[in-house]
């Protein structure tokens, strides 16, 4: 059994939006919107306190430290003579022994 619309009805349906008025947003739309946004703003503020963020930051720092340690390890070793002679200018950081030698002290007296 066919139940098709007449051409007249089809036309009426096609024109049924004639005179349509725009719908109005529900009451208290802004209030409800702000309430919904509250957790979003708080999430942003407290993002840096989240365990995942802190863990990731620490992991990055740790990896950077490990890389720099490996870099230091790869640097060529100085001959023993250079290590003992405090007047030899080198790029390695001063040790307590070289400091003591420069001032004719023993390491024991440095700590006193």
């Amino acid at each position, binding site marked *: 059994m066919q*139940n*098709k*619309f007449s051409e007249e009805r*089809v036309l*009426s*349906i*096609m024109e*049924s*939006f*004639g*005179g*349509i*008025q*725009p*719908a*109005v*947003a*529900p009451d208290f*739309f*802004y209030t*409800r*919107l702000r309430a*919904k*946004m509250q957790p*979003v703003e708080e999430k942003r503020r407290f993002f840096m306190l989240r365990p995942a963020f802190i863990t990731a930051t620490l992991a990055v720092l740790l990896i950077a430290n490990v890389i720099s340690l490996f870099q230091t390890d790869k640097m060529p070793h100085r001959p023993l003579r250079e290590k003992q002679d405090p007047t030899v200018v080198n790029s390695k950081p001063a040790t307590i022994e070289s400091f003591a030698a420069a001032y004719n002290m023993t390491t024991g007296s440095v700590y006193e």
Partner: protein
Amino acid sequence: MTEQELLFGLRQGEESAFKELVTRFQDRVFNTALGLLQHHTEAEDIAQEVFIQVYRSIQSFKGESLLSTWIYRITVTKSLDHLRSKKRKKRFGLLGSLFGDDNKPAYEPEDFNHPGVLQEKKEDAAILFKMIDLLPENQRAAFILNKVEDLSYREIAAILNTTESAVDSLLQRAKMNLRKKLNEFPP
């Protein structure tokens, strides 16, 4: 407040500017979402999501288009995304079970009544909305923006990022498809 003043205030994070924005655009956003989604609660949710998106992205708005164009574009995009998501859930729901957690059918087709339709045309409009639900996304968007939101071809072209002649073509095809589906109604 001019659009420039409004944009400045929004970029500064001023509450008053955001409130002004929402007040100015809430009806347009809601009406567009309602026409596309044919569901009051979903339209309100999407409208809220639109303003949240505007709030988050205002710094990236370069002002190459009107603020209204940008907001309409977000509204259309979010509404169509929501429709796609609903269709996916419906598909999986029907494959699994016909009943949800509350022992209700997972799919409940409803007759949609737009609150702005004239009383004497409500029945016909409800049928038309059913047919619009079957249109491809771009035709649906163009039809709703033109017939429900009463936007010009030029405005629609800006929103859909296309030309006016392409909008005309979309509307012609939408009308043709609607007539065809009406002639086949009920399926």
